[in-house]
């Protein structure tokens, strides 16, 4: 299986249909790499003509901007936009809602205009078009799955249905947490919290959210963001439920159910 970089395709004089923006978590975090690989496997399986930036990709600047470091954000944005525009990128798909939000909403006024799609929407389209074929009796059929809304997908960008539609395609039993969709509770990672200790409080946000997810009795907690995934995985470990409950990305659920 071959994952091409933009530089390689460029050298061959080819242009991919879509750029897969991997993001820092998807590139470096051992857990999130599995999500990246699952999504790349799906793309290969359905013969999507795509490429990654490889070593040339840089942080979008999201955690810098949200913590207050606008200088650093602008520097990262400048470099990324130069690179993307240099390659003439038109369409981007990404597995990270934070990258998605920054690329889609914040780069245009800095000169970066692209069609940006989150991988859950992308997967939903592929399923609707019949390009993704799932096993008749997949491993998640009839299983209880609870979907945790990512803030940067949900409230930030109003994407609530796509991940749910993808899950429905698995014939699983979807169980909603009380705080879902626009009322969904954050996992605790946003706003650069991922990179620092929580402030003083009674409990950690990811524990609060994991307790709610475990309360549904679901055997799979589905996530659509690598940071949510980390937070929920840590929460499940903290509650010593890792034997009974898995935290999986929507892409992993589909990849494991491919026909």
């Amino acid at each position, binding site marked *: *299986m*071959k*994952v091409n*970089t933009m530089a390689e395709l460029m050298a061959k004089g080819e242009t991919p249909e879509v750029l897969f923006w*991997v993001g*820092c978590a998807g*590139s*470096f975090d051992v857990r999130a*790499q599995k999500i990246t*690989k699952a999504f*790349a*496997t799906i793309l290969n399986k359905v013969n999507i003509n795509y490429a*990654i930036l*490889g*070593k040339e*990709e*840089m*942080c979008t600047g999201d*955690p*810098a901007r*949200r*913590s*207050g*470091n*606008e*200088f*650093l954000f*602008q*520097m990262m944005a400048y470099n990324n936009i130069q690179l993307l525009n240099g390659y003439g990128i038109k369409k981007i798909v990404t597995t990270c809602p934070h990258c998605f*939000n920054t690329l*889609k*909403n*914040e780069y245009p*006024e*800095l000169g970066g205009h692209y069609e940006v799609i989150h991988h859950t929407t992308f997967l939903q389209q592929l399923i609707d078009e019949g390009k993704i074929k799932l096993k008749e009796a997949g491993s998640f059929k009839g299983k209880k799955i609870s979907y945790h809304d990512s*803030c*940067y997908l949900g*409230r*930030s960008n*109003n994407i609530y249905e796509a991940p749910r539609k993808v899950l429905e395609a698995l014939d699983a039993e979807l169980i909603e947490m009380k705080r879902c969709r*626009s*009322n969904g*509770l*954050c996992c*605790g*990672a*946003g*706003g*650069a919290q991922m*990179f*620092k*200790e*929580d*402030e*003083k*409080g009674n*409990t*950690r*946000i990811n*524990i609060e959210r994991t307790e709610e997810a475990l309360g549904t009795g679901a055997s799979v907690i589905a996530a659509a963001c690598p940071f949510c995934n980390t937070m929920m995985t840590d929460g499940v470990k903290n509650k010593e439920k890792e034997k009974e409950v898995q935290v999986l990305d929507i892409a992993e659920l589909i990849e494991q159910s491919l026909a």
Partner: protein
Amino acid sequence: MQYIPQVLFILVSGIAIYLFAGKVSEIRRNIFLGRDEDLNNHSSQRWKNVLLLAFGQKKMFKNPLVAILHFIIYGGFIIINIEVLEIVMDGLLGTHRLFEKPLGEVYIWLINAFEFLAAGVLIVCVIFLIRRNVLKLKRFTSKDLNGWPRSDANYILITEIILMSLFLVMNTCDSTQSFFFSSFLKPLFNNFSEHSLVLIEKTCWWLHIVGIFAFLNYLPYSKHLHIILAFPNAYYAKLEPQGKMHNMPEIQNEVLYAMQPELAPTGDAAQTHANKFGAKDVFDLSWKNLMDAYSCTECGRCTAACPANITGKLLSPRSIMMKTRDRLEEVGKNIDLNKAFKDDNKSLLRDYISEEELRACTTCNACVEQCPVSISPLDIITQLRRYLIMEESNAPQEWNAMFSNIENNFAPWKLAPDERDKWAIEMNN
């Protein structure tokens, strides 16, 4: 002699309107102490928001039962104001039920409808008082409301109950007419003479209208100002996706000129104005942020949904708004006293809002999503964060490490940029 009530009425209403107008212009001045922000585009979409969010109270319907109760008070309040028109005209002209003759049957029907609404408002106000003081809902018992804000909420409810009771008693004691709802109260006044009934009716009439004027003048000091500001606040609400943060063109340009010095302006144009980055005090926030502060009705839906607050952190989005208003009022008083703002060695940052509160925010937009009157506490939080980082280089150690990783390794972790595509190489093999 017969003109004394009319003169008295004109005097009372004149004073009430004069005082109210003075306070309104003071609030207007305070709001415009904020930075300029152009929010006059896309007017059709903005009017739609006014209809849906302000008139239709769309966000309130996240909890339908409370929404309906609130809608009764709101609808009752607005519609009963049509009756106030008659009351004012009667006061000015010395008439009694001026609209009764010209409207005929319709008049009876209207007043019956108003009485129905008045009774509805009265009942809901009692329910709301119970919710606040007996059922002790978490968002009403929170320490955010300690002191004046808690009393403020109760005063408003009690005032509304008194005003509605006066309206009903006034109708009951009016022997010239009988209305649907107040006729049930008639037995209470069976033993009163005609003379005392007229006296009670007149007294209720006066207390009712004076009460309304008093309420009008209480509004600008109260959280209840939302009944006016919810409308402009919905009009000027953010239209872009909630996840988008405001750009800072001055920093965008600074980075651009550093990267491409040939684009940098020379000569006079190179003189950059010494604006500070981010916000330290109310002057650095935009006028919309400041109008947000005056629009806040302290309901606490934001705080009830805030992940930081739920898990016991110091941050409360409601308290961010209340503190912004408190500071703005303080600045306003300072200006009133000294003609222009005299430095008081205080600022919104630290004297009102602490670093710990700001650092607890996950920028999850739950507070923004919940607010029924289109307030963004998050926008204030991120601007104060920008000041901390860019003007004071004040960040937790872990954030400084994250910054340096992004700068040097192009990722928030200290990992070699060369390994970014390691996963792909693994897949290729």
